[in-house]
């Protein structure tokens, strides 16, 4: 899954230098640096409340009024899946997906996207009539249909069952392969991070304490070994102790 075009790109899609964000007394982001190359898929892990969403919101340029400093460059064509589904309650699902799309086959594209997230049947429902996972998928469809240069995903699969989750992951990877956006995916699922991303970051105390390139060998046995190793490594950095690790494994 790892694309080897990485590292050759002269200019990254996202460049962050010394990004600091504070809420009141608490420094959430403490001088963060990060580059994400074009087409690179980065996963972001971190404890609950560590500032993952804050970082994403900063990159999306949504944190007006939050004190802080630092510089960043991000493409203009950003697409965000928020941690909450954030569907407009007064628009039917299909209209939520097609919102702001340009071009003439807007509705077709929206319906196709809904089909891809298996929500064709619910296209004419109101958002409040959707189940939690359906809302999440609608938000995903809305984001993916846009073909952005930078895709910011804040736990987009959190409310999905195993099967749907796998399908949505495949969908995302497929889209990435086609349009090559830079992706920053926040997730709590370490396995998911390893499977999907080329690089995994762990945010802790306002800094990235881990920045790990995922380079799983292709031979199945070696691959499994390396997978377990990386997984262990990430879990440890997330603070899961040996005893707890045993239960997880």
């Amino acid at each position, binding site marked *: 899954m790892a694309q080897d075009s990485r590292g050759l790109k002269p200019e990254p899609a996202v460049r962050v230098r010394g990004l600091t964000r504070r809420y009141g007394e608490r420094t959430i982001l403490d001088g963060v640096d990060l580059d994400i190359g074009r087409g690179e898929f980065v996963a972001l892990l971190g404890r609950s409340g560590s500032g993952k969403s804050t970082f994403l919101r900063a990159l*999306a340029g949504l944190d007006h009024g939050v004190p802080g400093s630092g510089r960043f460059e991000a493409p203009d064509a*950003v697409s965000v899946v928020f941690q909450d589904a954030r569907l407009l309650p*007064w628009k039917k699902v299909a209209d939520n997906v097609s*919102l702001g799309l340009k071009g003439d086959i807007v509705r077709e594209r929206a319906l196709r996207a809904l089909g891809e997230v298996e929500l064709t049947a619910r296209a004419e429902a*109101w958002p409040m009539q959707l189940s939690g996972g359906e809302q999440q998928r609608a938000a995903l469809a809305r984001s993916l249909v846009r073909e952005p240069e930078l895709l910011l995903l804040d736990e987009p699969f959190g409310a999905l069952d195993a099967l749907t989750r796998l399908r949505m992951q495949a969908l995302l990877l497929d889209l990435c392969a086609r349009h090559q956006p830079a992706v920053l995916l926040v997730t709590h699922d370490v396995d998911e991070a390893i499977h999907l991303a080329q690089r995994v970051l762990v945010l802790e105390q306002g800094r990235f304490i881990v920045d790990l390139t995922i380079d799983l060998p292709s031979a199945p046995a070696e691959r499994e070994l390396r997978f377990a190793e990386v997984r262990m490594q990430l879990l440890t950095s997330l603070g899961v102790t040996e005893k707890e690790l045993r239960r997880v494994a």
Partner: protein
Amino acid sequence: MADLSIATARTGTGSRAKPAGWLRLPSRSAALAEAGETSRRRKRKLGPGPVIPYGAAIGPALLLILWSLGSATGFIDDRILSAPWTVASTGWELIQDGRLQENLWTSFVRSFWGLFWGIVAGASLGVIAGLSRIGEYLVDGPIQIKRAIPALALIPLLMLWFGIGEGMKILTIALITFAPIYIQTHDGLRSTDARFIELAETLDLSNAQFLRHVVLPAALPGFLLGLRFGVTYSWLALVVVEQVNATSGLGYMINLARTYGQTEVIILCLAVYAALGLSSDWLVRLITRKALPWRKILAD
């Protein structure tokens, strides 16, 4: 893998050592069976309770009954508040005359156009002030001032600028109705949840799209509430407006009846006002229910 014993464990009872015995207790199960459909859910504890058909008519009907009783027993002095039947027969006479319909129609046309322009002005100024800081600074202050000035006191100025014809009347009604619509629209816009604004920014909506798809729907409930005020005011404004150079209309009728002390005509006019107020308010509420199918609120 698929043919593991999954499908066999069909219901909860299968996997338990001893199925629950309650179905075999006759008294218990009978009680449950009797209660049937109704017992299957908890009663809603909080909230306003179930809707009674035509319940909204209870209050007005009660008023009418009290009024009739009071008049019949002489408890209400009919020189001050005519009896309902007197009012009804006066109404009937006036209808046969054609006077009531005529006046009502004149007033209706005035109210309608006044309200129309009031809505147009209120909603568009509300949007302007709601969406741009400059617009707000220019528009909001003067509107608050206008709102604070008694309509009666404005009439001389309006006469000066707009004459004493129909235009001035409609304008005055518009000026009276537009204030609540403006305020509600403005407040509705400004109260739009910031999360949706963030969403709109990431979806790269143009200002027009933002307005149309995000902000206006968000302001719609407020606008509709403002409309409830506006509709009522468009009727009330008639009393003020039809003092000036009017020879017909509901407000003119009531003013004229007052000079001649025709109590029953006054009360008739008030009854007409009440009916108009109730029905137009009801209409706006109906529109509200239809226009906001996406809401799930206490009222439902």
